[in-house]
């Protein structure tokens, strides 16, 4: 009995990342779903203290 079988017993609750039409179609089927307003990640590799330096 895997988690896949467990999923078969549960109510589907979906996180949709990408095409909004997929999300709309799930809502039409009365499925609980949340659409992620996804954006590509930005670069975040700055050291914190040097951040203050930048603001000097």
């Amino acid at each position, binding site marked *: *009995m*895997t*988690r*896949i*079988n467990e*999923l*078969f017993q*549960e*109510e*589907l*609750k*979906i*996180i*949709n*990342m*990408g*095409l909004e*039409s*997929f999300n709309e*179609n*799930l809502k*039409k*089927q009365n*499925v*609980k779903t*949340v*659409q*992620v*307003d*996804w*954006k*590509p990640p930005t670069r975040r590799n700055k050291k914190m203290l040097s951040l203050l330096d930048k603001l000097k």
Partner: protein
Amino acid sequence: MVLKYLIRENSYYDSVTLMIITREVKKIEGVKEVIVGMGTELNKELTGNLNLLTPELQKITPNDFFISLDSVDDNIAKKAFAFVDELLSKKKAESEDYQPSTFESALKYMPDANLVLISLPGKYAVREAKNALLNDKHVMLFSDNVPLEEEIDLKKLAKQRRLLMMGPDCGTAIINHVALAFSNVIRKGPIGIVGASGTGIQEVTVMIDKLGSGISQAIGTGGRDLKAKVGGIMMIEGLKALQNDPLTEVIVLISKPPDKEVARKVLSILKERQKPSVVYFAGGDPEVIKEYGSVPGLSLEDTARKAVAIAKGMSIKDFTGFTVTNINKIIQEETKKLNKKQRYIRGLYTGGTLCDEAMIILSALVGDIYSNIPLKPEGKLSDINKSYRHSLIDFGDDEFTRGKPHPMIDPYVRQERILSEVKDREIAIILMDFVLGFGSNSDPVGEMIPYIKKARKIAAKDGRHICMISSVCGTEADPQSLIGQEKKLKEEGVIVMPSNAQAVRLAAAIVLSRRNSQ
């Protein structure tokens, strides 16, 4: 430049509502700039900097709420404010239209989510899929353009965590009777499916429904699951789950021709348990399937018929014919309408596996078939935009869809193609599939009808009749009306067959009948 503003005095709205309003209004096409907030000095100053300040706005106090926006025209502004009014009047702390900006914040919002459906560009999709698996969520990965190595890593990770990893390139799945991505609405029943093909799953599930039975689950694995390197990981996990599922009595496997070793591996696992199974490995060897105790399906329709027969406790028979009663009459009539020169079949397909199935059936009956996705390398069209002899085109293939929407959604490419095809004096038959269900265009047939009409006109100019044959892959419960779609086709003189296999066999029968009569 249209400036429009809204003031609500002494009005307080919770932060989540305000955040949603700002986000949603910014998204409306034609809205250039918007500012939302309370009437503090600084907010007013910022509003002034954005050229959105009016004398009325200047007068408001920090306890007054305002929105000011700049749009391209008055209609857009009205639309934006109607939308805002609607949201403000809801007065809920959390609107159901909340769109978190990351997977992590989505999890915060819905911690009991159990499936993540990903259709992001390939290179980002992998990261998100992995993240989802590491958070113990099942994944359906619609995106393609994922390197094979990454697919293998994802599936291995999923297997380790005992989760579903449907994809990459998985376009169809029906889990707990929910149609995911491109899927149809299918009756509940005892047949469980695992498929490495989107339209393959669609055609089989639709047929099962048409035959009065239903499905428990339809698990997609993505097109490459049965390649040697991937080793059928997901198909095996899927079929094990169906073996353990009390609501599944019959198991169906669907795939393009798998790697031989992988096929044996998968079949041997099927053999381990007592549940009867029907296997469609397109163009594969039925003997190998029988060797492992499963029933081979000779076409998608035949697969469905056999599964339903098993489920109903009836005897299993190979089906390679027609269910249409006056079929011989149809063949004769169409044959008569064609002139001496007309002899070729042109298939214009939106579903890859349907195109495959058509090629397999046709090449056995009428000879060489050319395509953009040929069965043999020699069959590859040198110019995919120009057909040659018997040609079947899959418009959903990468070469056609790069930078464009899929033909199941946007019919443009197929519309253009049918007009160029009929200019060829040697064509006799045009084959077309129409795929319904969630994800597809809201009126696939309606979109093609004007072009079918025009095509007939072009052919009629030099006295040619074009035989048009179709099948509609859909159920009555789908968002598009199956009966309505079929009716529109029939009214245009298109012959509507109950399945892709039968449509293709009819085309072959007409060609052969013509050869015989010459």
